[in-house]
């Protein structure tokens, strides 16, 4: 096994994502470009890690739904939008740009595309 091929890569290189809001909650779906990378995402993109990654936005919970048939997963981050479109003072009160915050994470052991 060529261990030297296994490096840490940006999630952005091996997966794509889209965010959507519901009130003060946000969902971000993440899909591996290559089905072979899905198990790595399932292993390393844990609820705890995503909660930590968004800590500056203080989500009260992160729930992950795995979608193996689609090679991806859906994260639901609760109360992460400073009140969302009702109350937030953020330019992006919907949190739609936060999909690319998630994509800043790194994954170990993937092959570069």
């Amino acid at each position, binding site marked *: 096994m060529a261990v030297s091929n296994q490096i840490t890569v940006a999630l952005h290189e091996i997966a794509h994502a889209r965010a959507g809001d519901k009130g003060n909650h946000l969902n971000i779906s993440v*899909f591996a470009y290559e089905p072979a990378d899905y198990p790595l995402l399932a292993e390393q993109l844990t609820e705890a890690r995503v909660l930590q990654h968004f800590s*500056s936005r203080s989500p009260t919970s992160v729930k992950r739904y795995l979608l193996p*048939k689609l090679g991806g997963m859906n994260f639901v981050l609760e109360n992460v939008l400073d009140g969302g479109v009702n109350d937030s*003072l953020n330019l992006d009160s919907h949190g739609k740009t936060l999909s690319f915050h998630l994509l800043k994470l790194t994954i170990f052991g993937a092959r570069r595309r």
Partner: protein
Amino acid sequence: MLCEPPFARLRSSNLVNMKQDAQVGTLLVGCAAGGSGDRLDAARPIVDEFIERGLPSVLIFENLAERTLAFAQLAKRSNPESGYEPLLVEEVGPILQDCLRHGIAIVSNFGAANPQGAAQRLLKLAVELGCEPPRIAIIEGDDLSDTHGQQLLRPLLADELAQGTFVSANVYQGAWEIADALKAGAQIVVTGRVADPSLVLGPAIAHFGWPRDDWHRLAGATMAGHLLECGAQVTGGYFADPGLKDVPDLADVGYPIAELSADGSCIITKPRGTGGMVSVRTVKEQLLYEVHDPQAYITPDVVADITEAEIEQLGPDRVRLTGVRGHTRPPTLKALVYFEGGWLGEAEISYAGPNAEARARLAMEIVRKRMGNDVDLRYDLIGRLSVHADDKGALLGETSIRDGKDIRLRVAVRHDAEARIDQLLREVYSLWLCGPAGGGGVRTSKRQRLSNASCLVPREAVPAAFRFVE
């Protein structure tokens, strides 16, 4: 000119097909808008494609984001003639004649707060274009803004209604009244608030004749509607990431068409000769868009489960969705209630060149001191942090690199009193004169906000119905 009732044609085509193999043939549904303010030239290529293919076809426009309807309610309050989609004529005018001539039904929530007003405007438009007046049905029962509606909501949202200044309330209606209107011969169906996917499910029910408890098929067409409801978001819009996810010709992106089958599955495609693309990836991203639990996507019509769904590329710009399952629809309907939400003020000023970020941060401190501690202010250093930070400024405080060379300070404030908003706008304006060196490009704005609350209403309490508008 010939103005054929679309579903008369659908019904006769169904009968022909049923004689052949008991399976009703394909229904095409195209979506030419994913929100009020979306592109106005999206419908033409879809309608051209419908005409060329000659299959039973329905055109939908999704024009009602959550807040759009509350603002429409306010517009109607100040002018009872308004309250429907302000660009209705621009949206429908270019294709109305062809839709009526070729039996293409139009279904849309562009009625907003005033479906009757939209229907009357469309009747006038048809006459202006030299068509026979079309049969237009409106769906009613979603608006709970009157006294009766508020009484209904009071036990469900007691605190919110006691504290807030009520603006409007609408309940999400479903697909069955749309289907009934089409079966009764409507050429155009105008709704207020219905669940977005119901705009697709309604025509599918009318076409295929599915029974009310055929949950899997209802769920399949519901998810087709979900894929369509945001327009180009399934055909390459909101998808491109140069070098990783390249999309051809987004300037001319084609809006989606779903080929619905009698088994509840669908193929997503787009008009020939348009930009954008339909791929497994574009469809996956949109399938999960604004979805929380993939096992329970709840609409008024069904609870859809996409955990076993499969997405397959059949050819260029042709992607099939199968395997959606459905469960019994919920006993309640969701109502969104809007209240006055105070004022939002925003003001910006730029600093560039040497020491720019330090000057911007100094400007921030000056505004903070001038405004006092009794208002909620948010600061962004655009060029350093503009959207990913929090309202409280924790991340901005932690961001230690301070060498930004082209920084735009944004200050935002919310308050119930307009005077406090005006004060902030003046404080940023006066940075021209009293602030750090080299500031420029001040812009200020203020607007009234709306806030909302939701509740679940027993569906028997809020029946919907269609009627024709003469």
